[in-house]
């Protein structure tokens, strides 16, 4: 195997004395689909926020393709190749579905302000090319027919998909999905599952997935890492995780009280 796409070493963050995540280690290789699970408030989303530059780690480091990513702002991390979706959907609501994707294509455009103002041939060529690429991408998710719909008017499932499509449009190497199946019914989840498999095969990217739907995680993930109270309590193949007593106790609350506070 070549160099891993993502490598996190002893990553941690402290909020006012509270260790939200500590000693987080993870390696993801090209084309891998890794699951990140854990009870509510275990620090999963915080890990995502660390990996996308929303928060800066107070300890440790993480590398994308061997390049250190600490201290980079969100847009820099995204341009380097880590894109994400959000637990609570964040679309550009007043823009059309196509525009949502085009925004993420922004870095693929090379025309400058002058090109935009004088409507140079390069401007038209790129705008047309990107339009075609956006429609292609929407096609994968079955959204091409809704290209001119305002994002706010999409049904819930389509909003989730559009968020993934938009993340893909950034041209990333590693995709972070934060509970993509939350609030979906079984059919929609099934549909989403197919989508995730398609994009992984087609784009050859690595995916890190946070999910509560255990059947989804067990089905699609090649490896799973379990967080509890910001610490990794287990990591391994799905079947290993399913039988790990520590994981079971974390989920079922074998300790007398395992309700933890959301770190932020």
């Amino acid at each position, binding site marked *: 195997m070549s160099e891993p796409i993502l490598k996190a070493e002893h990553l941690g963050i402290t909020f006012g004395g509270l260790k939200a995540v500590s000693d987080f280690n993870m390696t993801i290789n090209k084309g891998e689909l890794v699951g990140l699970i854990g009870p509510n408030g275990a620090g999963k989303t915080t890990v995502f926020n660390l990996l996308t530059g929303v928060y800066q780690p107070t300890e440790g480091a993480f590398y994308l393709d061997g390049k250190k990513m600490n201290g980079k702002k*969100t847009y820099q991390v995204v341009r380097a190749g880590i894109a994400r979706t*959000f637990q609570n959907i*964040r*679309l550009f609501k007043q823009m059309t579905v196509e525009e949502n994707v*085009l925004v993420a294509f922004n870095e693929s*455009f090379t025309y400058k302000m002058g090109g*935009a103002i004088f409507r140079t041939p390069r401007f038209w060529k790129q705008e047309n090319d990107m339009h075609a690429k956006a429609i292609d991408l929407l096609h994968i998710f079955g959204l091409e027919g809704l290209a001119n719909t305002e994002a706010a008017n999409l049904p819930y499932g389509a909003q989730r998909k559009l968020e993934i499509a938009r*993340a893909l*449009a950034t041209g990333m190497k590693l995709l972070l999905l934060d509970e993509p199946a939350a609030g979906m019914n079984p059919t929609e989840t099934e549909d989403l599952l197919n989508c995730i498999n398609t994009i992984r095969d087609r784009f050859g990217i690595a995916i890190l997935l946070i999910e509560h739907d255990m059947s989804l995680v067990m089905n699609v993930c090649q490896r799973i890492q379990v967080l509890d109270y910001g610490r990794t309590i287990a990591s391994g193949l799905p079947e290993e995780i399913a039988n790990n007593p520590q994981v079971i106790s974390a989920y079922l609350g074998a300790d007398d009280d395992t309700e933890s506070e959301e770190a932020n």
Partner: protein
Amino acid sequence: MKKSMLSIKQSYIVCVIGIVVLFGILMGVCETGMVSLYVKGIIMTCCIAVIMTTSLNLTIGVLGQLTLGCCGFEAIGAYSAALLSKLLIANGVVMNDTLRFLLVTVAGGLVACVFGVLIGIPALRLHGDYLAIITLGFGEIIRVVIQNLKIAGGEGLDKGQQGQALIGIDRLANLYVVFWITVITVVLLFMFARSRYGRAVKAIRDDEIAAGASGINITYMKVLVFAISAFFAGIAGGIFAQYIGALTPSMAGWLQSINYVIMVVFGGMGSLTGSIVSAVGLTILPELLRAFSDYRMLVYSVVLVLIMIFRPQGIFGNWEFSLPKAINRIFYPKGKKGAKADTTETAEAKEAKHE
């Protein structure tokens, strides 16, 4: 179906023709003496208001950040232009009047733009109410500083006296030139808003965090928009200085800025058409209703509240008038369906027509 529609090129030509016709009408009424100096003055004021309002709309409507300091930049532009104009004359620089007017005006815009960047970088770290109040603060500081600059009072330059109106500015503003500056401003803003830049700006308006997660450099885009708005405000100020011939620091006050915010909000958040219509309308209306001038702001404030309650996106929302579209609708009524399917193409060709 497609044949009956105007192509992109044709749409542009139609727009250019539309603007030229408008200019022809303007020239016609001016040259034949159909309108008085007073009316010409109103048209000039309309142009200044259009430049201010459309550029402010980029920040308020498209970027979604309320600023209350636009007149601070207008004043910076106006005073810079006025002082440069005086400096040129004092040093005996001889050049064509139009050229000097343009040079001085653009210089005013550039100075305002520099201040836009300097103020924008710290201020744009804040959002919403805080941004509004900090820009108001900057505007007031600009006003107080101008008031206390020796160079910005009396005859200006070495003869300056602080706390006085700056007078004796060469009145070079020519209505035709100003008309074309206004046209160029609106076209530039339109082209900017309908490009990848405009999309990025709208994305920031809709969701800043998601915009960052889509690879948009938020700080850069915000400062860029702020600087563009400041630049055109400075241009408007430069024109104003060379039209009126005298300046007072009160032009930088926040009540003046709110006047333009009202125009933007009336017209519609993000609509250039709306900004143009409301800038012209709200400039002419008070002139027509001179008798009620005491109650102007009273009426504005009531209407403003009503708009916020019943139509918060403004009268035109983000709708744009497009001459080619209108022509398509009139001459090819059957082509309506084609127009829908073709929106992605024609949307790029849309052009805000003037007045």
